[in-house]
């Protein structure tokens, strides 16, 4: 056994953890284990089924594979016991090796030890260690003392796992088969069980399902038992310490300190002790390097140099590294740093590309800056007129609402305003004058809060249809001007200003 090659992290584990390690081992080497498992067990399983069929005893197909489990167990154990030392065997090698592996204990396991809950733990000890019977009993006592309960617990858990997987497979299968596709004879289970062929089929199915669940759980059972065995031996023989010591020895021998040390061991302890005592006396931790040495320090100081060398010998600080690197055999062939001519051309092309890209990016940056400026200017300019537009109606309203006395000659005043371009004011004046005159004509006090709609109502009470029409038109024109900013043409104004109410006409 070469402990250095072990592929499992050795450390003290509880037995629960060791069982989990078994699962991890199986997971890591799943392919070779199951490959060998199926190559070995599938023909035997089929042979058992064949024998059961020939003998006409279907239950034999269920019983024989179960009975032969200790035989099957050899396969995962062989693969795993090699795989943890990183010598994973192929399935061919596994099968070939079975001839040479001891058979005596397997035969015992197949006969009088068949119903043994410690099989998983007994198996690696008996098959891998191969000691004679007297020694074996003593060995078993040592090995199994704290593990008997765990090993039987493992066996029962694995039985439960197998049952769970087998039942799950059956239940899933039943769920997947639609009830309608079943033949009539199988709808009713009680009735179906009276058919002997159905009973036989059930046994065949059961043996198939048990084989599948056994194939899943049995390698796990063996792997877990093997992990328990490894853990127990790690406890008994301190394998992890063994490995650590071997590594340390390797390092020391490589560092070449062994011989030097032999001398040191004799003389050093007293010196080191003295140093330690010195350190103990001083409770305050040293603040700088000069305090450590109790004297000013310079590079040429012998004590400092030796201490520094000590520090560098500590593997945490100074370590020699071996660096492997490819070096040209004939460095003269090509001067370093001077690329070949075609490369120069390529480099020139590359430089050109880089320059172009540079240009493009600068251009993009310039575009972005310009776009930002344009946006800012437009935004500023756009915001000014909008403010003006907001204020204009205010001015207008004040001029409209302003209560100036009506001019004597209304059409002239309106025309004047219209011609000057104050169209809104002109129409406002016309509207105001018209409604005042309409109120006079209707003999009502002009209501101060009357809206355009009110005046339209009043207009409809006028007797003369021509007057009625004109007043309505004036109100509408004003409404359009005031609320929609839509103005009539010059000709329309002339029409509005002709006759009542703009002209003072005797009623």
């Amino acid at each position, binding site marked *: 056994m070469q402990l250095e090659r072990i592929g499992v992290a050795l450390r003290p584990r509880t037995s629960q953890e060791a069982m989990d390690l078994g699962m991890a081992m199986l997971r890591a080497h799943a392919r070779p284990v199951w490959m060998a498992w199926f190559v070995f067990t599938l023909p035997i399983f089929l042979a058992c089924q064949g024998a059961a069929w020939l003998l006409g005893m279907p239950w034999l197909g269920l019983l024989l594979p179960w009975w032969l489990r200790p035989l099957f167990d050899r396969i995962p154990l062989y693969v795993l016991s090699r795989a943890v030392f990183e010598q994973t065997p192929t399935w061919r090698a596994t099968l070939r090796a079975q001839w040479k592996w001891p058979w005596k204990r397997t035969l015992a396991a197949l006969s009088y030890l068949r119903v043994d809950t410690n099989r998983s733990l007994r198996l690696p000890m008996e098959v891998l260690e191969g000691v004679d019977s007297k020694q074996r009993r003593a060995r078993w006592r040592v090995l199994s003392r704290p593990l008997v309960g765990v090993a039987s617990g493992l066996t029962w*858990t694995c039985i439960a796992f197998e049952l769970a997987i087998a039942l799950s497979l059956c239940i899933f299968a039943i769920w997947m088969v639609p009830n309608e596709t079943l033949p009539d004879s199988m709808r009713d289970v009680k009735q179906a069980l009276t058919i002997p062929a159905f009973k036989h089929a059930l046994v065949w199915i059961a043996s198939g399902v048990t084989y599948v669940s056994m194939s899943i759980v049995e390698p796990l059972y063996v792997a877990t038992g093997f992990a328990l065995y490894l853990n127990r031996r790690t406890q008994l023989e301190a394998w992890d310490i063994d490995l*650590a010591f071997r590594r340390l020895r390797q390092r020391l021998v490589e560092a070449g300190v062994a011989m030097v040390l032999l001398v040191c061991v004799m003389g050093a302890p007293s010196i080191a002790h003295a140093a330690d005592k010195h350190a103990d006396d001083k409770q305050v931790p040293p603040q700088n390097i000069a305090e450590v040495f109790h004297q000013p320090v310079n590079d040429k100081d012998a004590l400092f140099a030796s201490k520094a060398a000590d520090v560098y010998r500590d593997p945490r600080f100074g370590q020699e590294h071996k660096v492997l690197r490819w070096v040209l055999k004939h460095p003269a062939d090509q001067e370093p740093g001077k690329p070949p001519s075609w490369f120069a051309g390529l480099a020139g092309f590359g430089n050109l590309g880089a320059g172009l890209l540079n240009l493009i990016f600068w251009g993009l940056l310039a575009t972005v800056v310009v776009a930002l400026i344009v946006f800012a200017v437009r935004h500023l300019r756009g915001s000014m007129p909008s403010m003006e537009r907001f204020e204009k109606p205010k001015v207008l309203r004040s001029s409209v609402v302003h209560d100036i006395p009506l001019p004597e000659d209304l059409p002239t005043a309106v025309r004047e305003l219209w011609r000057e371009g104050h169209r809104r004011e002109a129409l406002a004046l016309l509207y105001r004058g018209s409604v005042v005159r309409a109120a006079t004509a209707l003999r009502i006090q002009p209501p101060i809060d009357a809206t355009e709609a009110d005046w339209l109502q009043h207009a409809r009470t006028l007797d003369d249809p021509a007057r009625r029409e004109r007043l309505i038109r004036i109100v509408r024109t004003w409404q359009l001007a005031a609320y929609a900013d839509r103005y009539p043409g010059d000709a329309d104004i002339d029409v509005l200003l002709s006759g009542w109410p703009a002209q003072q006409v005797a009623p």
Partner: protein
Amino acid sequence: MLDTVREIETPEGVALRLRAAGAFGRAQAWLLDFVVRMAVFFTALGIFGALGRGGMGLASMLLFALMWAYNVVCEVWFHGQTLGKRALGLRVVSADGTPITLLPSITRNLLRVVDGLPGIYGVGLICSMIDPSGRRVGDIVAGTLVVHANDLPAGSKVPIVPAQPLPLPLDQDEQAAVIEFAERSPLLTVQRQEELADILYPLTGSEGTAAVKQLTAYANGLLGRP
């Protein structure tokens, strides 16, 4: 190196080692929990049975609580341990090693519906066999992990002998190995002790019993004893 440990490094550079638990311990813990819960339920059923139909209602409510709330309550308020997990030395933690909180606990226990398929935990069993950390579907979705919580088997105290300083500086792992040897050597046979100590001849410069004594003295020195 094959191991079941999940290593998590904190921002402070501390490596936490979570010893993930696999299907065996968890199945045993579940079975124990199941037995306890059924015992409680049937005892209560006996008491509620005297109350007639109202008692049946109370019993159904109790069954519901035992099915769905028991795990969550135990995990969130009792250090991630149901009774079965406590007995087996298991604990539910978040995937980063912090204590489990309410929502992940609810998630992982609600997903028992999936793991329980088809009624006997077939899906959960296969899933935890495949997953390297032994998680079932609920654990993977909720971001939780079941770990071994109990202490590792430790050796006895290092025998007290006059300390000796190490003749040359050793790595931390190497110092740990020397101390471990001194702790565990009383559990080993004398031959094995000497065999192990002989490996370190380059360090101790002695063989056999003397080497064992020498290493024990070094361990005392490393532990800061006089």
